């Protein structure tokens, strides 16, 4: 065994915290909410301010924490927050300002069932809010959907890479199941935080105090000249188109010969893997496409399968949200239906197979 590898058994939420420290995050600002409180609890136990120098602060609300993220991001620092659905709703104001000011940051949503206070059990009913913007205005978040504790850890760094590449907030859309379950994780080695000098070189837009040799830096989302603001909005859309061209990530299982396709992300994709095996054992040629990026959505990847796929079932812990993007992708060429349990109820693999037979194959 390679003893350099750091392999642990931990919760998804704990993995977020470990990964954040290890990939050189400068600041975490959060507010407790079930089922993600272990993120900040783990950070506070690990005391990264004594090792990497990372700042960890419990804010007075999710509104404050996302705005602390804005302040830190404006300084070119790697900053993040995490919450769960009701808290993420409170952060929508901050997220639209971050997108409008073109600031990179990472937000983790360990989704629980809504609407309202809802439940503390897992759900995937924040899909629309995550991939369609969420707050006011024409903007998008980069949305990554982990399906394992390992991906909870790995996607922190990936999310920061993408956020800084595009100067745009990135969201890790997890759920109560991935956040709370324990799995084996291989943790990456510690990376140094950027020095202020490195930040000045890499992110010349950052507000770190104005030296004589450059213009002042202004982090803002306000522009009162309509023509200038139209041009700015077009610039944002160009950025989102580039993401759609270059950043789509998905995983495909048994899709080469599939007559029927399950599309599912996060914990639903885990269940669908088993459902796919059960269906294959019954002789049904089923494949699974797991979007890893929900925005940008794997449109081309799904379209490429339409030569042999006769029907698609979108499986989500919601009343049917991602199914709309699958339908837009498929443009009516094949039948697309939704199956999902909600309110904190999680579907079984058998239920998924039954739904596939009833809604797609027999329907």
């Amino acid at each position: 065994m390679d003893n350099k590898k750091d392999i642990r058994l931990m919760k998804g939420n704990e993995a977020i915290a470990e990964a954040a420290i290890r990939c050189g995050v400068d600041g975490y600002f959060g507010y407790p909410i079930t089922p993600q409180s272990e993120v900040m609890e783990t950070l506070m136990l690990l005391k990264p301010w004594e090792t990497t120098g990372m700042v960890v602060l419990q804010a007075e609300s999710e509104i404050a924490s996302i705005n602390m993220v804005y302040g830190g991001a404006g300084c070119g620092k790697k900053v993040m927050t995490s919450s769960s659905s009701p808290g993420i709703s409170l952060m929508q104001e901050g997220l639209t300002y971050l997108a409008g000011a073109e600031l990179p940051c990472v937000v983790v949503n360990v989704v629980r069932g809504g609407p309202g206070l809802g439940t503390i059990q897992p759900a995937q009913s924040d899909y629309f809010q995550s991939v369609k913007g969420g707050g006011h205005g024409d903007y998008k978040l980069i949305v990554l959907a982990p399906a394992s504790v390992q991906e909870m850890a790995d996607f922190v760094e990936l999310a920061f890479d993408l956020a800084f590449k595009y100067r745009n907030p990135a969201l890790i859309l997890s759920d109560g199941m991935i956040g709370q379950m324990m799995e084996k994780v291989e943790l990456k080695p510690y990376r140094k935080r950027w020095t202020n000098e490195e930040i000045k070189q890499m992110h010349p837009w950052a507000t770190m105090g104005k030296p004589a040799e450059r213009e002042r830096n202004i982090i803002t989302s306000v522009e009162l000249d309509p023509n200038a603001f139209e041009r700015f909005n077009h610039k944002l859309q160009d950025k989102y188109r580039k993401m759609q061209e270059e950043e789509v990530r998905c995983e495909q299982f048994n899709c080469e010969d599939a007559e029927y396709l399950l599309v599912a992300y996060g914990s639903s994709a885990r269940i669908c893997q088993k459902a796919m095996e059960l269906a294959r054992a019954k002789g049904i040629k089923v494949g699974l496409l797991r979007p890893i990026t929900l925005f940008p959505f794997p449109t081309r990847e799904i379209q490429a399968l339409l030569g042999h796929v006769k029907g698609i079932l979108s499986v989500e812990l919601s009343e049917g949200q991602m199914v709309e993007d699958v339908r837009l992708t498929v443009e009516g060429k094949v039948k697309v239906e939704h199956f999902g349990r909600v309110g904190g109820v999680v579907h079984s693999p058998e239920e998924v197979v039954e739904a596939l037979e009833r809604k797609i194959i027999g329907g």
Partner: protein
Amino acid sequence: MEVSIKDIIKPENLVYQKSSLLTEKPMHYCPGCTHGVVNRLIAEVIEELGLQQETIGVTPVGCSVLLYNYIDIDWQEAAHGRAPALGTAIKRLLPEKYVFTYQGDGDLAAIGTAETIHACNRGENILMVFINNGIYGMTGGQMAPTTLEGMAASTCPFGRDPERDGNPLSMTEIVATLPGTRYVTRQAAHTAGAVRKLKKALIKGFNNQKENKGTSFIEVVSTCNSGWKMTPVQANEWMVENMFPFYPLGDIKDK
């Protein structure tokens, strides 16, 4: 004997000049507004303390949203009420820098009440500047948390009625009770003497940050002659007569 203007422009004749940190951008404030004076004082203080490279300012939503156009330092523009949250993170991530927030009454004492109270209660090592003119200026004269009893605004056109609208809020006295605040003062900028006192307070607010002993909080009781529908002179008189009794000037806390 003819006197040429060139003979008068000599260093020894100079009694006042624009701060080198004030940009050439014409200010958008209404003539008579207090913002322009306070903006200028902040520029002077940063220049005189030599802190241009060391300062990051946070602007609010409201009349002073475009303050970043006027002073030549790095700036961040916050969502309505959230400036203290930005200031908190900027200072914690860049503790060697000088950080100040600049907010109006609606921003700081209504929508941002939680951010204000908690930044002060944590004792964030920043300067918070609070412009209190008792009205929402930018949105066109609506009732503010600090609008006085009986004072008319577009959303209380017959005067603030405490039974319906609640009472005017003295945020500065509230933050003075918090252990996190170090220096809490209420100033004005309507006379030469008041301007000098305000400038001293601002210098103190910046210098305090060297010692990391808590938040400095400066309220500036201000006029909004457009919103109050008065001439600048009338507005100053009205402020002295009506605002000062409810918002008395002076240091509330200095430790």
